[in-house]
């Protein structure tokens, strides 16, 4: 797994796809595009609800300039877990 650490530079919510695009990095020009997106067709609603709290946390981190640590697979942009770090 990969941990991408940085500030939320930009975040787009797209309800029709039940997903959010989030750009994480040190500056607006140096940011990694990651996704908060459904994992599959038969996903439980509890997972969906949890994922939406993740988007809310990313928004809160963005406007407070708080750093986040997004965990995802090496070859997949979908965020599987998220930490708000002490720094």
């Amino acid at each position: 797994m990969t941990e991408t650490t940085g500030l939320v530079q930009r975040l787009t919510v797209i309800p029709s796809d039940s997903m959010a695009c989030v750009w994480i990095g040190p500056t607006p020009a140096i940011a990694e595009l990651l996704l908060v997106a459904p994992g599959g067709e038969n996903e439980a609603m509890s997972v969906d609800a949890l994922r939406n709290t993740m988007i809310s946390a990313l928004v809160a981190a963005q406007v407070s300039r708080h750093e986040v640590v997004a965990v995802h697979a090496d070859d997949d942009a979908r965020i599987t877990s998220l930490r708000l770090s002490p720094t």
Partner: protein
Amino acid sequence: MATSTGTVQLISWIGDTVVATIAAPPLADRAVFIAFRSVDREPTLHCKAVMANLLVSAFISGYPIEARYNSNWEIEQVTVGAFDISPVGPAIHGDFYSIGGVDIPPDVEIVFDSDTMTVAVDPDMVRPHCVFLTALPSEIPLGRNVVSLRSANWTSNPVPIDVNAGPPQTARTLYSGWPKHRPYTIALAANPGIETIEGDFVIDPVMADRARYHRASVSCVRSLLTMAEDLLRQNDWDRQIRFISIFDATLSANEDNALAQEVADSTIMAPRNHRLEAFLARYDAQADIVFVVFRSDTHNRESATATTDYATSTTGGTAFTYDGVEHVHGYYPRTPGSATMSVTIGNRTMTPFHEFGHAASDYNNGRVRDLYDDNTTSSFAINKKWRAQSSDPIPAIFATYNGVDFPSDPTRDGLGYPPDWVSYHPELITPENPNLMDNYRGGQNSSLLSRLDRLTYAWFTDRLRAKFNR
């Protein structure tokens, strides 16, 4: 699909809709809405709820949004952010403050605008990708401000921030570094305790002087990134380096917390490098290099300990040859390199870079040694060799690194070899100034002009590239 970009002026909940009014002067305000329909799938409803929360956050924070909406003015997606600068962390009086950006000009100032006044501050350090303030001035009004960067020919976007009185953060990111797994990280840590020669643990006086710790920390960063030696900023590499600070005034002086120790029969303070990894982990942090900032009246001389990288078989590495023998630039440190740094260092000094030279080298695959003495070592040194006799000639070729011959410095430029020395050094990049790993203060010019030798520079360039690309 149309787009409206601006700040959220009003949000209303009306029936099954959330209506947001977006102001983007000089254009007229635009009312757009999110509709919660009974036919919507549950995931869509969840996501619409998140989007409504995003509008609320934008309304409260003053952040502009970009709303895309259909011909009925129903929002189909919302983006928040998209500034051209990036303030790092909360704005707290007396705490560090830094802002990331792109192509930031060197004459930039940081401007804080509030309802009552405008405060312009000169940064303590400027690089094209970031500016640092040692401490956020208390003149900046508490509460909502808009911060921007301004120079003679450029002004950034204004970013809303909330300034508060404190206390300063215990752990703080100064610059996030490259958005990848474990970017190369340099940590600055105020030393909670000192292990004395007698084996006791005493509180380090630096913990009572946070302001001075801040100044010393920025001085370290300034030394690494802004002086004549460009090792870390070549190819804009410093954009990749993560900088963090830890000042934890709650810790007592004990075996676990003491990060520095007095060295007997000397004035040297040494890092307790075996404690660093566990110390950093408390703050969800890892580092390649740690500067331990301390204060002592009796042991005020800095020292460093080289990094110990993981074996290649564990985490990988990049092979190199030195005089025909194969070695490895390891990707990850098992024990980070470390240096003590007196809180009394000046604002502009090469001492942090000199100690970085030791700390960033590797215990097992090449150490970068002091060149101001004739001391011998049994470990593999990159930048120092020894003749059998001081009367023996200095070889023309110092070493062959990755198939390339690097000349020796036949005269120890700028200083001269004492006649009884057997050690000798590689050729300098700037012969008019002493080597940064030598007595760099002893030359005719400013010590700030001192650089590494050609061989060490080439070796460090490859070593750092291996770590940046890991």
